[in-house]
């Protein structure tokens, strides 16, 4: 077993394993450990460095530098430039997300069968079985009451008063202590990101891990994938190091994310009609509530409350999201003395967000410098959902006792009182008026039975190729309306179990 970190320019590094897994996030780590437990030797090849909790940054700047993909500079190219949130580190986005565990809803499998001819019964049962396993192994728990913090408690109160379904989140954490540092990586080691469990387990079962090793292309012999090729990159100075080649005796599993997986397959020469298409997301944005008493949203779980009451209609998920002062400062509108007066209220602010179950879809292409280029714009129907979501969030703030809300929408007043909620109902439908992000990403290598409209079959195997699989969010052919980590892990487990059966 061995871990190979950055290697400076020199002789080519070579390794061999039964399976090469590209990426170490939810999909990659789950795929790797499932294969390793089945007795296969696995090499995980991860673009980012391997950081332990002691290596995690504390500040948001440090998180962008050390954990995020290209400092978080990947943005959608469309009507609006919205950041695409992804990590580049061993553990992938599980290091920087809030570790929210939601089982794949039953209706998702129904839709996949109806629209993509993916057999429901066997897939659903298998995915749920893997999700059960992950829940046990990664210690999924409700956020402990003592770790919720005021912002989450207020959201529970608001949801209760409005009498819609809402709940304390279940997350992959071991006794969360509410340090409010999920986005910067949990230095307390409570969050069960995959760099702490499935990646080390794969290594301990005789595998290899290459870190700081972005894959440039998959190597083929005819239509059989036989390995991956790339160059190490210095995690600090980003200098190119030694070339590496990892040979796969049995198969290559791509799990580099919904943006990087399609881009990697494109630059590897795949010319598939559906490759890079059907990229989807849950775009999200938030509303600040301003309360009389300090909320101190950075004390307590970063995200501890959610509602899926509006998941089916109109298609929304509501959540709390604590962001640190350095991000609030950028998010509140205005500058100069106007801004200083606004940020003074920081302790009294609570940020709650809505994520849209968007039906709009876009494309991913391999762009300049091997970076994915994402074209994506929300259509009018999805923008209406976003507007409805912000209205619901604002209403919940007022139900919880907020005296004002700050919607942060271009063209609207800076803040609104309880008697001005109607203003949000008429907020603009132009995406450029909103500061939003894309956090849950799907598609680009979607699965299905029809080779003309899908890249992989329902077992993650790329149509027309041998020994080439995809096992991450890029195979998911529709939005989920819930946080995707559980589904990604369930699918990756299912695919790999089938592969070694």
């Amino acid at each position, binding site marked *: 077993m061995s871990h190979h970190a950055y290697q400076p320019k020199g002789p080519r590094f070579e390794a061999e394993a039964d399976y090469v897994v590209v990426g170490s996030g939810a999909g990659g780590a789950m795929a790797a450990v499932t294969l390793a437990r089945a007795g296969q030797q696995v090499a995980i090849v991860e673009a980012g460095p391997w950081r332990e909790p002691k290596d995690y940054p504390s500040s948001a700047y*440090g998180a962008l530098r050390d954990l995020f993909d290209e*400092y978080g500079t990947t943005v959608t190219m469309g009507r609006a430039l919205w950041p695409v949130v992804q990590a580049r580190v061993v553990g992938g986005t599980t290091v920087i997300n809030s570790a929210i565990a939601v089982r794949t809803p039953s209706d998702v499998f129904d839709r996949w069968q109806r629209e993509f001819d993916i057999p429901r019964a066997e897939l659903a049962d298998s995915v749920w079985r893997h999700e059960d396993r992950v829940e046990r192994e990664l210690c999924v728990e409700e956020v402990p009451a003592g770790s919720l913090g005021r912002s989450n408690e207020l959201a529970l109160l608001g949801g209760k008063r409005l009498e819609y379904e809402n709940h304390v989140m279940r997350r992959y954490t071991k006794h969360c202590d509410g340090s409010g540092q999920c986005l910067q990586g949990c230095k307390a080691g409570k969050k069960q990101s995959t760099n702490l469990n499935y990646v080390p387990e794969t290594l301990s079962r005789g595998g290899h891990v290459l870190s700081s090793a972005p894959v440039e292309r998959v190597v083929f012999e005819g239509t059989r994938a036989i390995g991956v090729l790339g160059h190490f990159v210095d995690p600090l100075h980003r200098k190119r190091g030694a070339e590496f080649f990892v040979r796969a005796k049995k198969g290559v599993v791509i799990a580099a994310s919904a943006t990087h997986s399609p881009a990697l397959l494109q630059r590897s020469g795949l010319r598939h009609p559906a490759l890079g298409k059907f990229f989807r997301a849950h775009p999200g944005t938030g509303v600040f509530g301003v309360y009389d008493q300090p909320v101190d949203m950075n004390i307590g779980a970063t995200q501890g409350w959610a509602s899926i009451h509006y998941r089916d209609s109109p298609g929304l998920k509501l959540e709390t999201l604590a962001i640190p002062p350095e*991000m609030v400062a950028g998010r509140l509108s205005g500058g100069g003395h*106007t801004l200083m007066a606004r940020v003074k209220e920081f302790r009294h602010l609570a940020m709650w967000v809505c994520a849209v179950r968007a039906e709009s879809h876009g494309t991913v292409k391999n762009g300049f410098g091997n970076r994915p280029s994402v074209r994506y714009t929300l259509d009018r129907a999805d923008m209406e959902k976003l507007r409805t979501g912000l209205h619901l969030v604002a209403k919940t703030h007022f139900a919880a006792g907020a005296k004002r809300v700050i919607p942060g929408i271009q063209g609207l007043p800076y803040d609104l009182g309880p008697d001005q909620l109607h203003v949000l109902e008429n907020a603009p439908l132009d995406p450029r008026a909103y500061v939003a992000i894309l956090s849950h990403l799907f598609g680009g290598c979607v699965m299905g039975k029809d080779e003309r409209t899908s890249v992989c079959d329902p077992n993650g195997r790329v149509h027309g190729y041998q020994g080439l699989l995809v096992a991450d969010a890029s195979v998911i052919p529709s939005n989920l309306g819930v946080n995707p980590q559980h589904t990604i892990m369930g699918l990756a487990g299912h695919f790999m179990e089938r592969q070694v059966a």
Partner: protein
Amino acid sequence: MVAIFPGGSGLPGIVECDLDGFLDRFFQEAALALKLGLVAGAVLYQLSPLLTVGLPVPAFLLSEAQRERHLNRLLSHPIYLLRQACFLLKTVAGLCWGSHPSVRALYALPPYPPDPGSCRST
């Protein structure tokens, strides 16, 4: 950046928050796209008072009140790309200002430990 976070309302300005040290680190470490975006935002801010306050001078020649008006009009400008370029400048400035121990103390938050920047080498 100084115009965006000038200090006031009992809060320190960005100059008091080790802006020079932050910018040194930023220009050494940040991704090229981000550095270019920041420079573009700064150039735009300096050269665009004609678009916002109708004065054909660079922003550094404006009075404090004019500069504030210029900044706020740019940040809410109807042309999206102008607004976004300035938003990027503000976001990066916010990363410096909001993480400084003096600011965090006023928000009853402990100072951040240093970002180690370390990783496993074996």
